[in-house]
């Protein structure tokens, strides 16, 4: 029964997201930020200032781009909207935790996003011949596992922020703070090996570097993939899952079903 529920939810949410395929395409284009950093670092490499060659930077930042795309979430926005508009009421009436619906919404969207990523990968390979190399099945699978954990952690953080809508009128923008931390400490701006060692040591216990850097390091094969990253991601995912459950339990009593 659980599988049937999951299958139906995913199929319908995939169909729903297909209706917004054009929007998703432009959303992906809006996520090309890593390529700007790639251009800057490649130029520095050409002038001989950095560790890697321009092609290696291209490989790294493409992996960063894919890792980022697979971890994109909007649960903060959607849940906040459900609370504000009273749409949550319908989901409360049904024998299914609304969180699962939200999760299905994200996973269904990945089904639309993935083919576009493949096309972008093709274009990238044509523009930068030799930049993309096959990482091997093991690294690919490990990178996907890291990326899945990164997605789940991002999801529970965003969902927890969305749940704050039970207390605040609009909590969605709090998630921007998370995004800033991800931008600086995830390896999106630069490979982490270029950061001061003391900073690296501290960062590796936070979830930020593992969100993007861990899968990117595994896929690009350039940076040392820290196995402890899996444990760190897993523990932080559990922490934010627990936070979201607690916020749900405390917040529900404050729900006024406005507009419903």
């Amino acid at each position, binding site marked *: 029964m659980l599988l049937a529920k999951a299958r*139906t939810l995913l199929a319908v949410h995939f169909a729903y997201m297909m209706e917004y395929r054009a929007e998703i395409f432009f959303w992906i284009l809006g996520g090309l930020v890593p390529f700007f950093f790639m251009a800057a670092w490649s130029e520095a490499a050409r002038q001989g200032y950095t560790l890697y060659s321009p092609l290696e930077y291209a490989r790294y930042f493409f992996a960063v781009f894919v890792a980022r795309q697979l971890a994109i979430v909007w649960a903060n926005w959607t849940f906040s909207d459900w609370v504000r508009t009273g749409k949550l*009421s319908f989901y409360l009436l049904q*024998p299914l935790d609304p969180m699962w619906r939200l999760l299905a919404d994200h996973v269904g969207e990945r089904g639309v996003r993935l083919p576009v990523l493949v096309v972008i990968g093709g274009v990238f390979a044509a523009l930068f011949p030799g930049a993309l190399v096959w990482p091997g099945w093991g690294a690919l699978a490990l990178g996907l596992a890291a990326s899945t954990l990164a997605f789940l952690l991002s999801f529970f953080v965003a969902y927890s922020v969305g749940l704050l809508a039970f207390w605040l009128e609009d909590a969605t923008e709090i998630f921007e703070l998370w995004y800033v931390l991800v931008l600086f400490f995830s390896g999106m701006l630069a490979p982490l090996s270029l950061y001061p060692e003391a900073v690296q040591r501290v960062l590796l216990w936070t979830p930020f570097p593992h969100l993007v850097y861990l899968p990117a390091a595994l896929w690009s094969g350039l940076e040392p993939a820290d196995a402890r990253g899996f444990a760190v991601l897993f523990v932080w995912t559990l922490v934010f899952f627990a936070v979201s459950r607690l916020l749900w339990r405390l917040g529900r009593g404050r729900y006024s*079903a406005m*507009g419903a």
Partner: protein
Amino acid sequence: MAAPAVLAEQLSKTFRVAEKEPGFAGTLRHFVRRRYRRIEAVRGVSFEIAPGEVVGFLGPNGAGKTTTLKMLTGLIQPSSGRARVLGRDPYRREAGLLRELTLVMGNKQQLIWDLPVLDSLRVNAAVYEIPWAEAQHRTAELAEMLGVAEVLRQPVRKLSLGERMKAELLASLLHRPRVLFLDEPTLGLDVNAQLAVRRFLKAYRERYGATLLLTSHYMADIEALAERVIVIHEGRLLYDGPLGGLVERFAPFKEVRLMLARPAAAAAFARFGEVEEAGGLRVRLLVEKDRLTGVVAELLANFELRDLSVDEPPLEEVIGRVFAKGAV
């Protein structure tokens, strides 16, 4: 006596609402020191509804009807008092109970806007753990009763308001709930669609022995479906009893309609009762029941009439008076 399907016991709900003055200064004050007001939306409302009963839930806007329904369906937590549906606390959201109840909100939609109705029904079937073959059978049955079989493959956004409301009903009833809470189910629908929804609800209730608690601003809905009404005003229960009793209790008058042979001034009828309509050939009076015989005899003696009819006043008028009085 069977256990009640719905029980409200001293049910109360108080909301704390932030208040803000308009303008720049008001915004600054609101930012520095927020002021709140407590709104007692529902105050100690108690009633029981037996299994299979259909009850009309009446009250003006802001009376607390919807808040009561939200507490009875477990959407919000009562500030005090007890809500029970089929003996269970709806706020706990036990799956077993959620499979037995539904809430239809005429001003809200659960259907997925950009997808065909059938996709929403597929989700509901999965969520309520109804095998798809069974769900298809139920869909066909309900769609036939509602007359919407043709539109199930169309995106929801392409449906007319009436079609959408019927599809909403279908989605809300796919799991065959035993207890239905209906909040303005015919809101905004044209007369034909209202009639169709009423007929459907009546048929559903007869077929499945369901319990219905229904709010509506259209008295025709209440008259067609409910034998008992509960009236609340400013969060307090005003009346709970048979529909006929409401008229008896709050309308100690009859409506007298006249069709005159020649126009007469409104002032000529003032001594007979409350003049609701006059000035032309048509006259409508509300006459106290005790005086009715004498008034009719006098009207016949003093005016040349083409027609005269005596009836109960329209329910809308009775309800309007109840709300205007605000007390029993």
